[in-house]
């Protein structure tokens, strides 16, 4: 972890809100600058979807003298997931807490990440073993903070509030909340609908109440799911879409939080 500059935890209270999709695209977005080294660690031990979303299904992990090598999507984007350790897409990881904790510890300690600017840690939903272990091991090496993903409806927000309380309890700074599946634009008539109605004002009202930054809202774009299924970056597939623009704005705010500065080119001053 000494060679990792910034560490970001991606959390959600609920399953199915688009956390892994967001983690993957945060990684893709940051890695678009080839001078930025990005690492994506998937600690959803039972439901490791990152390999599929990153187009790395079937890849295997290699061991070297310096530890496990992550699987590289690009030269500057490495990925690690328990998915790479399973020999079949049907293999189930039926482990209790202590064994999952052991795996997470290994991922954080034994993977040879190299010099990394951003390590993004994708988690399973909830506030249990995986989250406690990740926070425990990462906090020792300074965790920048957590991004919490939600959808607009109260049932989801209720779980996000628990997640926010979890962060307070374990002293993890909160970078902010992302509201996913915010609004749907019909591809035929272009009119907007709210598939997941924000019955209590959505993430916007919750963030105002709890004084936590709302990093942005991402509309529900059917192309996102399709890109993920194909293992491609949605940011590349549909760069001008409202969803892609929303993602980019959110990524920028995360970078600002982490105090990221673009390396300034030295200009030769003429005498």
């Amino acid at each position, binding site marked *: 972890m000494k060679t990792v500059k910034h560490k970001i935890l991606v959390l959600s209270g609920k399953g199915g809100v688009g956390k892994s999709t967001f983690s993957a695209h945060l990684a893709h977005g940051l890695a678009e600058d080839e001078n930025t080294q990005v690492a994506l660690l998937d600690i959803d031990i039972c439901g490791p979807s990152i390999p*599929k979303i990153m187009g790395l299904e079937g890849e295997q992990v290699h061991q070297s003298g310096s530890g496990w090598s992550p699987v590289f999507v690009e030269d500057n984007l490495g990925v690690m997931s328990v998915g790479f350790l399973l020999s079949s897409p049907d293999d189930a990881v039926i482990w209790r807490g202590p064994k999952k904790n052991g795996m997470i510890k290994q991922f954080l300690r034994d993977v040879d990440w190299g010099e990394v600017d951003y390590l993004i840690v994708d988690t399973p939903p909830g506030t249990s073993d995986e989250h406690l272990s990740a926070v425990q091991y990462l906090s020792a090496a300074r965790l920048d903070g957590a991004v919490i993903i939600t959808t607009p*409806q109260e049932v989801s927000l209720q779980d996000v509030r*628990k997640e926010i*309380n979890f962060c307070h309890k374990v002293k993890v700074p909160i970078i902010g909340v992302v509201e996913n599946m915010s609004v749907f634009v*019909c*591809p035929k008539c272009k009119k907007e609908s709210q598939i*997941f*109605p924000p019955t209590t004002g959505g993430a916007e009202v919750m963030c105002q109440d709890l004084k936590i930054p709302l990093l942005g809202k991402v509309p529900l774009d*059917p192309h996102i799911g399709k890109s993920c299924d194909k293992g491609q970056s949605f940011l590349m597939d549909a760069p001008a879409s409202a969803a892609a623009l929303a993602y980019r704005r959110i990524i920028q705010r995360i970078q600002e939080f982490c105090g990221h500065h673009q390396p300034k080119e030295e200009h030769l001053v003429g005498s």
Partner: protein
Amino acid sequence: MLRAQGRAVHQCDSGWVPVFVDQEQSISLMSVGFLLESPDEAVVWRGPKKNALIKQFVSDVAWGQLDYLVVDTPPGTSDEHMAAVEALRPYGPLGALVVTTPQAVSVGDVRRELTFCRKTGLQVVGVVENMSGFVCPHCTECTNVFSQGGGAELARLAGVPFLGSVPLDPELTRSLEEGRDFIRDFPQSPAFPALSSIAQKVLSEAPARLS
């Protein structure tokens, strides 16, 4: 979702009394939600503590005579799932209803859930595909918001019945949040016939599949 938030759990001689959610007392509910002081309280427990509570929910709740016990689980194949299977197995018959959304990423995870069922000897009653398409309320065009085909594909892979697809309906979400009776208020909803049909299939096929 069942309009039971804030209700208290009482004790009787035979154990904890589950909370009835309807006037006819045909549906009772137990959840850790009833044991929290505030809905924002986070339950930050490791596996063993979760397992203990699940065991208690099965053995220490005075469920009474039940035709069906439906157990809602978190995603995954871990402590909660193993604890539930272990605690419920002595009371057989026990089966699983597996829920997915249409996209391949979801199927990729849920097939592991099916392996869990196989390994723990849990008979699968069938697969349900949720969030299966959205009909635009303005122009009635149906869009496959979360791709398509995942449910049927999963059922085929696992050799289990495909029970049906439930479309996305914002009114269903709204009802669950506003504490309304969805079936009474929105009988015209496209989700209603889908849910009905799945329930019917479970009622008619589960007994045979689980015997």
